[in-house]
C-alpha cells in the first residue's frame, strides 16, 4: 500500500470535498473527520515502521516525474521524517477543532475575507503539503513542497488574520520566497554539479566532493532553511506572521512549517555538504546561541501574547539549530525530538492564548489579569503549556532541551553554557507572562470569562497528555529517532563523542 | 535593383514609424501603421523576386488580409473611444499608467 501517497491524497481530496460542501458546519465536520482519518492512517503506518531496518527510507515510492532531468516523485520516511509527519498529522485535527470559530469572524478585529469552508480546505491542503515536504526523498520534490506550503499559509494569514494581516502575510511570503529562490538555485546547481542526472536524495549523498562548491551550495540551502526556521537574524517575519495569523494557523506555522527549516538543515545541509557544514559550524553555532539568548530577551520585553510566544520560538529554534550543528548523536536526537516537542508545546501555548484572545478580543497582555480565578482549567493548562515552554523536567520538552544542551556540551562547551542561560530567561518570560495574565486581582474585563468548554478541553487535553507522557517516557520516540540520526551523522563523518574516561581507557588498552 | 527596393521599403517603414510617434490623431496613427505594413509588403515582394520564390508574395497577401482585419477592428475601437471620450487623440487615452 502506498502509505505516504495515501496520506497526502486523503487531505487533498478532503479539501476538495470541504470546499464543495455548502454548509459551513458540515464543512468543519468533514474537515475534522478527514484529518482524523489521516491521523489514524499515520498511526497505523508508524506502528508498521521498523526502526531497526537496514533500509533507510521505508514505505518508499519512486516514480519518474520529469525523466529528462531525473526528477522523481520519490517519497519515503526514516525515523526523523516519521516523527515529524506524525506531529503534523496530530496537530491538524487539534488545530481544526481549535479553529472551529476562527474563520467565522465572531469577535475578530478584522472580518475574514474568505468563507469558512475555504479556511478548512486550506488547512487540509496545508496538511498534505506538510506531509509531502517531510516525506520527499527527491530534492526537487522537496523544493516543490517547500514552496507550495507557502500558498495555503499565505491565504490563511492574509484572509483570516488580525488587523495587520496583509502586512504580515506579505512579509512572510517575501521572506520565504527569498530563501526559497536561493535554494532553487542551489538545487539546480546541485543537479548540474553532481552530474548524476538525478535529484534523488540518497544518490546525491557524497556526490559533491569539491569543498568550494560545497560551501556555495550549502549557503544556498542553509539561508533558505535559516529563514524558514527562523534563525537569528532572519527572524523578524515570524512575530508578525504569528501574531497576525489566526491561532490555529500560527500553530501550524510555528509548530510544523518552521520545522521544515531545521529538518532541512539536518537532512540536506549536513548530509549533502558535510565538509561545508563543518566549515560553517562555528558561524551557525554563533547564530544559534545569539538567537537563543536574543529571542528570549526580546520575548521578555513583549507586550503582545502571540508575539511573545513567537519570540520564545525563535529562542527554541536556536536550540534546535545548535543541536543539529553540534553533530553529536545526543544533540542530533535531541534536536529532532525538540522539533516534535516544540510542536506540542508551542501548539498548546498558541491555542490556549487563542482561546484567551477569543474570549477577550485582545492579545495585549495588559488587558488580562486574574484569569486563574474565573477560569482555573484554562489557566492551569496555560501554565502547563508555559512550563513546557521553559522545559520543565517531567514535560517532554525537557528531555529534548537537555539532550541538545548535553550533546552540544560534548563538543562546544562555551556555546552550550551560554545557551543554557536560556533556561533562566525562559523562566522569566513564561512566568512573567503567566503572572500578568492569570494571577493577581481579577481584571474587570476578565470577569465574564467562561472556563474551557468541552471542545476546548479536547483540544488541550491530548497536547498536555503527550507533553507529560513523553516527558517521563520518551523512549518510544527516541528509539525511532536514534537510528536515523546515527545514519545521518555517519554520512557526515564526524568522530562520535566518547566520555573522557572511556577515551583514556581506550587509549590505555 | 533589389537594394533600391529594400532601401525604399526601409525608408517608408521609418517614415511610418516616425509618424506613429509624432501624430496624436488615432486615425492618422493608424494610417502610419498601414504605411509600415505596406513597406514590409514591398520588402516581401522584393525578396520574392530576388529568390524566385512565390512564398514572399503570398506572405504579403496574408499581411494585407490581416491588415484589413486589423483596420476593421481598430477603426471600430477608435469610433467607440471617440463616442465616449469625444476625442481621437491617442494621448487622451492614458489611464493605463503607473
Amino acid at each position: 500500500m502506498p502509505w505516504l501517497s495515501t496520506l497526502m491524497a486523503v487531505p487533498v481530496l478532503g479539501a476538495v470535498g470541504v470546499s464543495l460542501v455548502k454548509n459551513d458546519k458540515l464543512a468543519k465536520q468533514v474537515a475534522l473527520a478527514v484529518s482524523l482519518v489521516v491521523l489514524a492512517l499515520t498511526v497505523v503506518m508508524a506502528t508498521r515502521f521498523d526502526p531497526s531496518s537496514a533500509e533507510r527510507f521505508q514505505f518508499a515510492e519512486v516514480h519518474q516525474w520529469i525523466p529528462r532531468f531525473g526528477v522523481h516523485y520519490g517519497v519515503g520516511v526514516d525515523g526523523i521524517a516519521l516523527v515529524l509527519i506524525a506531529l503534523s498529522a496530530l496537530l491538524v485535527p487539534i488545530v481544526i477543532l481549535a479553529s472551529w470559530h476562527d474563520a467565522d469572524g465572531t469577535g475578530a478585529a478584522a472580518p475574514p475575507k474568505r468563507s469558512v469552508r475555504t479556511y478548512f480546505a486550506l488547512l487540509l491542503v496545508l496538511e498534505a503539503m506538510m506531509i509531502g515536504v517531510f516525506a520527499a526523498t527527491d530534492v526537487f520534490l522537496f523544493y516543490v513542497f517547500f514552496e507550495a506550503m507557502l500558498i495555503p499559509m499565505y491565504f490563511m494569514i492574509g484572509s483570516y488574520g488580525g488587523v495587520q494581516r496583509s502586512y504580515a502575510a506579505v512579509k512572510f511570503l517575501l521572506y520565504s520566497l527569498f530563501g526559497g529562490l536561493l535554494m532553487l538555485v542551489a538545487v539546480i546547481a546541485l543537479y548540474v554539479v553532481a552530474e548524476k542526472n538525478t535529484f534523488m536524495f540518497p544518490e546525491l549523498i557524497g556526490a559533491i566532493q569539491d569543498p568550494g562548491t560545497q560551501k556555495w551550495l550549502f549557503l544556498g540551502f542553509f539561508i533558505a532553511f535559516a529563514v524558514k526556521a527562523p534563525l537569528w537574524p532572519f527572524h523578524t517575519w515570524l512575530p508578525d506572521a504569528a501574531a497576525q495569523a489566526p491561532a490555529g494557523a500560527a500553530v501550524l506555522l510555528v509548530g510544523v512549517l518552521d520545522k521544515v527549516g531545521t529538518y532541512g538543515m539536518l537532512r540536506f545541509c549536513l548530509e549533502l555538504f558535510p565538509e561545508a557544514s563543518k566549515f560553517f559550524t562555528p558561524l551557525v553555532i554563533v547564530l544559534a546561541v545569539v538567537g537563543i539568548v536574543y529571542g528570549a530577551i526580546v520575548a521578555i520585553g513583549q507586550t503582545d501574547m502571540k508575539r511573545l510566544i513567537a519570540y520564545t520560538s525563535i529562542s527554541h529554534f536556536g536550540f534546535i539549530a545548535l543541536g543539529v550543528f553540534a553533530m553529536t548523536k545526543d544533540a542530533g536526537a535531541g534536536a529532532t525530538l525538540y522539533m516534535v516537542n516544540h510542536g506540542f508545546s508551542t501548539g498548546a501555548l498558541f491555542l490556549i492564548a487563542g482561546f484567551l484572545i477569543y474570549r477577550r478580543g485582545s492579545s495585549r497582555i495588559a488587558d488580562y489579569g486574574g484569569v486563574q480565578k474565573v477560569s482555573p482549567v484554562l489557566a492551569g493548562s496555560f501554565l502547563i503549556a508555559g512550563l513546557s515552554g521553559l522545559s520543565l523536567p517531567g514535560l517532554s520538552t525537557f528531555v529534548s532541551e537537555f539532550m541538545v544542551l548535553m550533546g552540544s556540551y560534548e563538543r562546544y562547551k562555551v556555546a552550550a553554557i551560554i545557551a543554557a542561560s536560556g533556561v533562566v530567561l525562559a523562566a522569566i518570560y513564561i512566568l512573567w507572562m503567566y503572572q500578568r495574565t492569570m494571577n493577581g486581582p481579577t481584571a474587570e474585563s476578565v470577569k465574564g470569562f467562561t472556563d474551557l468548554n468541552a471542545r476546548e478541553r479536547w483540544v488541550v487535553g491530548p497536547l498536555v497528555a503527550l507533553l507529560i507522557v513523553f516527558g517521563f517516557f520518551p523512549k518510544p520516540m527516541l528509539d525511532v529517532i536514534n537510528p536515523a540520526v546515527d545514519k545521518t551523522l555517519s554520512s557526515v563523518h564526524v568522530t562520535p563523542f566518547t566520555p573522557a574516561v572511556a577515551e583514556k581507557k581506550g587509549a590505555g588498552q | 535593383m533589389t537594394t533600391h527596393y529594400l532601401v525604399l521599403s526601409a525608408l517608408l517603414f521609418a517614415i511610418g514609424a516616425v509618424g506613429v510617434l509624432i501624430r496624436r490623431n488615432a486615425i492618422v496613427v493608424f494610417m502610419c501603421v498601414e504605411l509600415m505594413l505596406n513597406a514590409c509588403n514591398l520588402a516581401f515582394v522584393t525578396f520574392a523576386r530576388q529568390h524566385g520564390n512565390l512564398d514572399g508574395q503570398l506572405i504579403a497577401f496574408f499581411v494585407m488580409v490581416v491588415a484589413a482585419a486589423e483596420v476593421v477592428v481598430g477603426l471600430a475601437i477608435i469610433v467607440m473611444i471617440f463616442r465616449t471620450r469625444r476625442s481621437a487623440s491617442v494621448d487622451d487615452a492614458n489611464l493605463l499608467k503607473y
Partner: protein
Amino acid sequence: MQSPVEIFQHSGGVIGVSWLMIALPLLGAAVLLLGGRRTDRWGHLLGVVMSLAAFVVAVAAFVELLGLPAGERRRAISLYEFIPGVADTGLLIDPLSISFALLITGVGSLIHIYSIGYMSHDPDRRRFFSYLNLFVAAMLLLVLSDNYLGLFVGWEGVGLASYLLIGFWQFKPTAATAAKKAFIVNRVGDLGLLIALFTIWSVFGSFAYKNLGAGAVQDALAGGSLSQGTVTAIGLLLLLGACGKSAQLPLQSWLLDAMEGPTPVSALIHAATMVTAGVYLVVRSGAFFEAAPTAQLVVTIVGVATLLAGAIIGCAKDDIKKGLAGSTMSQIGYMMLGAGLGPVGYAFAIAHLITHGFFKANMFLGAGSVMHAMNDEVNMRRYGGLFTVMKITAVTFFIGYLAIIGFPLLSGYYTKEGIIETAMEHNEILGWLAVLGAGLTGFYMSRMVFMTFFGKRRWADDAHPHESPSVMTVPLVLLSIGSIGLGAYLILGNRFMKFLAPAVGLPAELPEPHIFGVGTVGLATLALVAIGAAFAWFRYGAAEVPEVAPRGSFLTVFARRDLYGDALNEALFMRPGQWLTRIAVFFDNRGIDGLVNGLAAGIGGTSGRVRRIQTGYVRSYALSILFGAAVVVGALLYVGTM
C-alpha cells in the same frame, strides 16, 4: 576513612516496590487536579491518605533495609529506560535516601494533617492538597533517584511545587511575584546544576551514582581524564545549584518572600524538606567534593556566611514567618557548613537536617496556629501574652525554640554542637563564626518567643485568639516530641553515624559523643546563647514592645532590609536586565526589522519613481519599441560583421 559501599541491584521485597512512595502521592495529585470540583469534599482526605501511604512504604523499606547487613545497605532498583543511552529511571534506597524519605513522608504527613485544619476555610483546599502531594512525590524522586538526571527531574519538580504553593493565593500580587521570584532564582541555581551535569557527562559518560562513586572519581583523576580544575568546577557548579534550592548566599533572596505562601507550605517546603535539598545534593556528591578541597572550602564559607546572614536577618524581622525564614536560612547554613566538612560533617549535617525538619516544622506550624488564631496577623508587635490563651501551641513552640537554640539535651543541641565541633577541628575561624551564629540564634529566637507569647497583649481590636482544633495541635505535639528526643536518639551511641556510614563512607572509629559535653566550645556556645536570650528578655520580655517598629540603628535597618540582598539584585540584575530587554526590543523593531522594512521601503520608493516612466502615452512606449528595434538591427549587423 573508608569509601562508601558499592551499590547492589535489588529486586523484590518492599524496596522493590519503593517506587510506590513516589507513585502514590503523584496519583493523589493527579486525581485531585483532574477531578476538579467533584473531589472537593474528600480531596484533602485523599491527600493525607496518599502521604501516609507513602510514609508506610518508606517505613517498611527502612525496616527491610535495616534487615540487611550494613555492608549491603545500598540497594538500587531500575524501573525503565528514561533516555536511551543516557540514563534510566531507577531508585536508590540507601541510608541517606531513606532518611530523607522518612523525614519527607513523616513530617510531610503531619503537615498534611495539620493543613486539614489550617486550610479548612479556603475554597481551594483540594487544590492545595494536590500541590502538597505533587511536592511530596517530586521531593521523593529527588532523593530516591539513583542518578543525577532523575535527581534533576525531582529538583525541578519541587521547584514547580514550591512555585505553585507560594503563589497559592495567586490573587495576591505579592504572592504571585514571590512565587515567580522563587522559581527564577532557583533556575539560576539550576543552571549551575545543569552545567555540572553536562561536565559530569562529558567526563564520565554516565549520570548514575554507581558509576560516579569516590573510586570512579579518584580513578579518573589519577588516569588524567579528569583534571583538578574540572572537578573543582563540578563542585562549585553543584554548589551553585545547592545555593539556589537551599537559599544560600548569594541566591538567598527568594526564601523570605516565599513566606507569602500558606504557613504549612512554609513549614514543609521552606523549612523542613525542600530547602534542604541543597544539602542532600552536596552530601550525595561527596565524591566530587572530597576530590576538590577548594570547592569544599567554598561550601563551608558559603555555609558560614549564610548562617550569619540568616541570623542577622532573623534578629530584625517583626513578621513571625519571616523571622522563622531567616532562622531557616541560618540553620541550613549550619548544614551546608557541615556538608563542606567531609564524611563526619555529612553525618552531622544530615542529622541536623532531620532534627531541624522536626523543630522548624514544629515552630512554623506553631506560628501558623498563632496566625490562625489572630486573623492571619503576622506582625509580632501585634502579639504578646498569647501563652495564656493557647497553651498547647505555646508549649510546643517553646520546645521547638529550646531545640533550635541548642538547649542542652534537646535535639538541636546534639546536632548543632556536632557541626560546630567538627568545624572547629577543620578551621577555627569558621568554628568561632558558627559559635557566634549560635549566640545570635539565642537572641532572635528568644525575641520571637517573648514577643509572641509573653509580655503585654498588643492585639488588634477584633482579635479573639483561641486554641486551634486538635487536627492542628496533634501534629504540633508529635513534632515537639521529635524536637525533644530525636537528637539524642540519633547522636548518642553514634546510631545515626553507623547507619549512614555505608552511604557516605565514615571513618571506622568515631569518638563516642557525650550526653552533655563540657568542652570549651560547648561552654562558649552555651554562654553566648544565654547572653543572647538574656538580652532578648531585657529588650522584649521585660521592656515594653512598641507597636510600631522604631527606626533602629543602621544594623537593624540593614537586617530588616534582608542585608540589602534585594536591592543588590535589583541594581545588579533587574535594572540592567530591564534596560537590556528594552534595548533588545528596540533593536529588534528598529534595527533588524527596520533594516528589512527599510530595504522594502527602498525598493518600493525606487519603483515608485521608476514607474513614472509608465506615462500612459502610447507614443512614448512606441518610441522605446522603435529604439529597441533599432538596437536589435544594430546588434544583428554587429553580429553579422563578426
